[in-house]
């Protein structure tokens, strides 16, 4: 659509600008403020320059939780995006069953995050939970409160359970927007099922998959409530991801400077990855 140049449009945007700025700029300034100061209790602050940043960037603890974070995010993206696409491809295309599927699939997205954690806690308890009990009954030694691998896998499974539907809905919407003529043309050209996917569906899904990737990347990078309720970050530090570590530092140890510096590094990283991914994926488009 051809848009007209009109600076008065700023008046329409102003309310949004104010309300978001109130929530974004003021807290961000507070965080920046903390990140360069040392505090010894009530309102006593000393300027520390970049000390916290240097400390965070050189601390093994930060490297470890960053590593765990990347491994986790990478794993769930590798599972959720392909699985979401596969489910979207196999869903009914229309009719009552399509609606039923959509509603059932959207359900996990509307459950408060701590309830998701609590639900999975109950589900996975080795002695009384459906999953934990069944696995142990099958002879698999499973106890997510004691075994690091079990805990890590449970958190991954929980995230897949919680968020794959988002990818399904996005991919389903993308598939619905493909005109029937494309499938007809592919039949005429004798294309195989795989070719239809590779040359028609996948290119048309590219746009929504970029959205899915970005949303899932951002959200998994800031994941806090669900693993916190499920495992509390344990056993040991196995499921201590960035946000959990951050809250531990800020509230548990009252190490505000470190926590603030971590926050900023972490926020900048998310921004950078999203920007890089977005720019790279759009470059392919205009070529």
């Amino acid at each position, binding site marked *: *659509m051809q*848009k*007209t*140049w009109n600076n*008065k*449009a700023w008046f329409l*945007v102003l*309310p*949004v*600008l104010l*309300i*978001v700025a*109130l*929530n974004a700029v*003021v*807290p*961000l300034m*507070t*965080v920046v403020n903390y990140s360069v100061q040392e505090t010894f209790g009530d309102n006593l602050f000393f300027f520390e320059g970049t000390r916290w940043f240097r400390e965070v960037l050189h601390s093994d603890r930060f490297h470890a939780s960053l590593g765990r974070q990347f491994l986790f995010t990478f794993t769930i993206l590798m599972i959720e995006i392909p*699985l979401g696409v596969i*489910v979207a491809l*196999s869903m009914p295309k229309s009719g009552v069953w399509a*609606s039923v599927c959509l*509603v*059932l*699939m*959207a*359900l996990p*997205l*509307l*459950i*408060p*995050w*701590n*309830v998701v954690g*609590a*639900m999975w806690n*109950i*589900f996975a308890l080795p002695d*009384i939970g*459906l*999953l934990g009990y069944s696995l142990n009954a099958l002879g698999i030694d499973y106890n997510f409160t004691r075994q690091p691998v079990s805990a890590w896998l449970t958190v991954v499974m929980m995230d897949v*359970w919680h968020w794959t*539907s988002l990818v399904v*809905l*996005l991919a389903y*919407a993308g598939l*619905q*927007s493909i005109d029937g003529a494309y499938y007809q043309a592919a039949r005429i050209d004798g294309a195989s099922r795989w070719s239809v996917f590779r040359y028609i569906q996948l290119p048309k899904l590219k746009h*929504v998959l970029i959205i899915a990737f970005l949303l899932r990347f951002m959200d998994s*990078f*800031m994941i806090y*409530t669900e693993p916190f*309720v499920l495992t509390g970050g344990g056993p040991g530090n196995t499921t201590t991801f960035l*946000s*959990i570590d*951050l*809250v531990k530092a*800020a509230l548990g140890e009252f190490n505000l400077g470190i926590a603030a510096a971590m*926050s900023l590094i972490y926020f900048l990283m998310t921004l950078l990855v999203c920007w890089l991914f977005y720019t790279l994926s759009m470059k392919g488009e205009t070529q």
Partner: protein
Amino acid sequence: MIRTRWFVTIFYILFLMLPIYGLVTMSFKTTNEILGGFSFWPQEFTLDSYIKIFTDSTWYSGYINSITYVLMNTFISVLFALPAAYAFSRYRFLGDKHLFFWLLTNRMAPPAVFALPFLQLYSAMGLFDTHIAVALAHCLFNVPLAVWILEGFMSGVPKEIDETAYIDGYSFPRFFTRIFMPMIASGIGVTAFFCFMFSWVELLLAKTLTSVAAKPIAAVMTRTASTSGYELGLLAAAGVLTIIPGAIVIWFVRNYIAKGFALGRV
């Protein structure tokens, strides 16, 4: 071929339903039965947990608090986002692209980063432990989302509609409320759904900004879990009750969910 397809869908839905099934059955069990060991189906079916929730004001006021701030947030988000989305979909103006991108970056702000500063900010404004505080705080991620989705829907309405209305002598506010908003009614519905959803599921900020008067149900649950020991049946029942509002809302917008996603742009 048809069989495999059904198999994938059914298997996935089964996977989604199992933990919910676990939660629902547990909510109908007595504490003794729960702690006594695993059972696939309640041996002694009981509604005690639900009765407790509906009779104890610390429990049910939690629901009222949650629903209150979620509805407030949904209303504020849509109201503020409507004119802004119109501006982005119809006009070019100084810094529009940067502004749009900046708005979206707030969707990336991790609540864990902002929890403490939020507490200080809203305490300083004297809004601590009020519904409006949570509703305003959730605007951080819901307003950008609302602008994003609405802009997609508005761009689908041809500009000639606006021009015709102005020629016919409509003022901007009258045109916007009488003609334009009814045309994008489904878009507004979808947007409201997403605002409802993200405000309803968020807990960290809601918990941080409240203590008693506006405490959300999810926070009541967390505290119960830690203070009154292992009342799993009660916890499960409260969990089941938090799923119900979401399920009702999805049912109403089921035919528009896919559309709302498709029209958003990066």
